[in-house]
């Protein structure tokens, strides 16, 4: 189920970058600021909000349950409070929050955020990978940020897939050119690396998901061959 609106709580450099990257994906992107002075900003349309549980004004404009919220307030305590407040009111709202450190990230997860991006760790990870693994970093970067045609996709084993009831180790992957299968995700969302001893003996069931890497055309060909479809479920994120 795709979400129709994006709500960005907090107006700062992060808000501007997030807006730049997500505005094409949603029909409606709104920025809310705690600071009333920001409302007069000429470049961006900004609305005011406060940390009370009164979301009526926003509700009138937007179907909040069918939205995604970005909690990016710079004050960690306020950000946690906002997240709790949103989660308490809207169970189905997808919340992405930004945390300065992993310690705060855990608190935000406890507060009900679906996904938390720890700023310092993410930046440090990227710097370390740039320095220590420049090749893998550039390949993974290309996959993620679409500068390459290479994709990672997850393919769900359907009712009619001929992989159903087959043992993973008995499948000849070489048969499917251009595709590399990385892991298998079970129905309970736990994933196993393809060469792990557990995955090897695993018998494919309906609902299992294969995580594959390949070029778009090859992935489509693979889907056709095994009789399954691409599957995106992002309501079950876990960090």
């Amino acid at each position: 189920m795709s979400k129709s609106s994006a709500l960005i709580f907090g107006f700062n450099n992060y808000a501007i970058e997030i807006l730049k990257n997500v505005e094409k994906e949603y029909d409606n992107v709104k920025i809310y600021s705690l600071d009333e002075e920001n409302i007069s900003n000429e470049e961006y349309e900004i609305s005011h909000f406060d940390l009370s549980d009164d979301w009526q004004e926003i509700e009138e404009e937007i179907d909040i349950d069918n939205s995604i919220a970005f909690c990016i307030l710079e004050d960690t305590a306020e950000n946690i409070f906002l997240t709790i407040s949103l989660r308490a009111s809207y169970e189905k709202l997808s919340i992405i929050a930004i945390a300065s450190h992993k310690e705060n990230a855990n608190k935000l997860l406890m507060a009900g955020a679906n996904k938390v991006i720890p700023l310092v760790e993410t930046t440090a990870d990227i710097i370390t990978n740039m320095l220590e693994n420049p090749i893998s970093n550039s390949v993974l970067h290309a996959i993620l940020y679409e500068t390459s045609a290479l994709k990672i996709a997850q393919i769900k084993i359907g009712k009619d897939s001929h992989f159903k009831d087959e043992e993973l180790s008995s499948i000849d992957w070489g048969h499917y050119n251009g595709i590399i299968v990385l892991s298998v995700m079970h129905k309970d969302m736990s994933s196993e690396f393809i060469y792990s001893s557990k995955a090897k003996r695993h018998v494919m069931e309906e609902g299992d998901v294969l995580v594959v890497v390949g070029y778009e055309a090859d992935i489509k060909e693979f889907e056709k061959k095994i009789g399954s479809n691409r599957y995106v479920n992002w309501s079950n994120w876990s960090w």
Partner: protein
Amino acid sequence: MFKRLIVDAAYFLQTSKRYQSRKQFFRNLLENNKYKYKKYVDIFMIVLIFMSVAVLIREVKHPIHDYMFYFNSYVISFIFFIEYLLRFWIHSSVSKIIVDRAEHDSFLSRNINLLKAFKKIISVKLSYIFSITAIIDFLAIMPFFHELRLLRLFILFRVFKLFRYANSFQTLASVLATKKFEFFTLAIFASIVIFVSSVLIYVMEANNPSSPIDTLFEAVYWSIVTISTVGYGDVTPVTFEGRVVAIIVIIAGIAVLAFTTSLVVSAFTEKLDEIREVKTVEDISKLKSFYLVCGYESVAQDVVRKLSKHHKDIIILDEDSARVERAKSDGFTALNYPPGKLESYKKLHINIEKQVKAVLCLYESDVENVYTALTVRSLSKEIFILSLLMENSNRKKLEFTGINKIVYPQELIGLVTRELIGQPVAFEIIHELRSETSNVKITELAITQRIIDNFLNTGELGNEAYRVVLLGIHKKATQRFYFNPLKDTLLENGDFLLVIGYNVFIKEFEQHLHTKVRDE
């Protein structure tokens, strides 16, 4: 004629590369603590000293073999003699003094006055001969003349040579030297007390037949034993007056002891940071390759922690002493040097292009990062510089300073968010592969000549048997990444394999790649 011959010879030696490089070699070997082979010479000399002393101790009550005796008297003495001559040679340059004099005189259109040059040579060389270390070196050679029994005791002077070879002794001496004035004052005070009390006790006790103090020497001996708070008790005052003197000396002794202890302790406390810093700089100059991190704020802390997990050497520079302390307590090498100042790099004694892998400007302030990057760039045009950017409006300034890679966290977060909502699966998987805690890793394996000797193409690698996924190959020739390469893709020196798998299996696979399987 004679004068000309000497000046020509001096010029020849001064310009001879061979002669100068040899002299430099011995100078490094004997005096340059940063020279990597010096420590072996030091260890060799220390071993000789201990052997020599061991022979001396053994000799006291047991007969020793002749070869031990000759080894001790001749071989070790000869080695020390050679060392003495080498030190005498490298201490100063005779040819330089003559050349300097010749140039000075010809500049002033005078006749070359070699006499002045010789005087200077003699004074310079004598200053070496009469230096304490040179005297000890000379006395250590004396056991060569072992027939003179007294000279054999000079073996003990060899122990003093240890000062030369163990840096910690030199450090101790330099620490105590900082309190020269205080020690001098203390010595004067103690000397006066000893002198006065010796005379007093002699006057009070010498005429008393029951007193053990009969001579002035015994009085001085008693004073020193008492003032040092040792108090053997073999010589004690018996008269009332003598005991009063003893009370005064005992009280003065406590003061002297307390003063000495506090002087030594305070000298060490004051110099401790400096000593540590000198040691750290010395260690840094010996590193072959390291990352130089400028600024130790939150992102830097995490980057340093992650890099250290890859077993990389990291040096942190920060002008904020609290952050430097934090870095030290986190277990990293940090110096309280401002990274924006050229002087900091001069103090480090490093070859920035050869030793530094990359400079990371990780201050959370664009002003600091630009300042640091410009300083580093002024030292080297080639060095790789990575910098954090905090405000996008400053990007151009950072680019202008010649920073090779700019990391703008806000932009990263924007991209990450887009991936989170657009390609959640790819995001999750890639995050998992990059994560420190995950068992499954993505790794780069470099193709070396040894691997090529064993395996011709990717089909021969046998990665499946090692439960490793070969994601692709990065070809050096084309600088491109080839995903899922065909089995007949040739391996070339400098290529990289990108593999995914459990750490332990990747290691096994790597070992397998380096194991010879193909017959020559």
